[in-house]
């Protein structure tokens, strides 16, 4: 959804690496817990492992915004992140109240990050719809 600037290429490389680390950490954590290989307090560390690369992706987005030299392309990404934040927080808040009144099932908190990335995509669609060819 964004022009292929040098900063965007660096961002993509970082995200690919972080995604691979995420997959490795997730598989390791699930395997460790399933086979009861993780002792005592180490469980907290292993449980948090898959979250770290996801946090890294948020950091990579921040770094991209700092490194992007094309001000217009940077603005497009800022709009996308605003969409992502508004969308994920709105859905999470709504779901939280529905859950509180026992009208829907409980959902694991990490889905908020998934919703945020969905929102990022929606922001890209919004850019395209409102800016046409200039929306990338």
């Amino acid at each position: 959804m964004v022009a292929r600037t040098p900063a965007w290429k660096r961002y993509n490389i970082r995200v690919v690496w972080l995604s691979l680390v995420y997959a490795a950490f997730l598989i390791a954590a699930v395997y460790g817990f399933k086979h009861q290989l993780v002792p005592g307090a180490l469980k907290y560390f292993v449980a948090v492992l898959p979250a770290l690369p996801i946090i890294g992706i948020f950091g990579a987005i921040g770094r991209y915004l700092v490194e992007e030299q094309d001000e217009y392309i940077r603005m497009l990404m800022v709009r996308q992140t605003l969409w992502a934040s508004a969308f994920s927080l709105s859905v999470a808040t709504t779901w939280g109240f529905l859950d509180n009144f026992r009208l829907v099932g409980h959902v694991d908190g990490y889905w908020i990050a998934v919703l945020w990335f969905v929102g990022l995509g929606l922001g890209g669609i919004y850019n395209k719809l409102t800016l046409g060819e200039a929306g990338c």
Partner: protein
Amino acid sequence: MENRLRVLRAARSWSQQDLAERLEVSRQSVNAIETGKYDPSLPLAFRVAELFDLPIEEIFVSPSRRSSKAI
């Protein structure tokens, strides 16, 4: 913001990509500025002005002047 970027570019037979490369921005940026969908920052507006060797106000139409004309 209204501007004469497309006219100035066409006078030199430059494509949007040509102008983008000269300004060191993306083609999308040029497209957005030309169509008035994005107002460039002051540093970028100066780069545009210096490239065409014109004062900024001969490329970009001041929104306040434009509205006062309408009144």
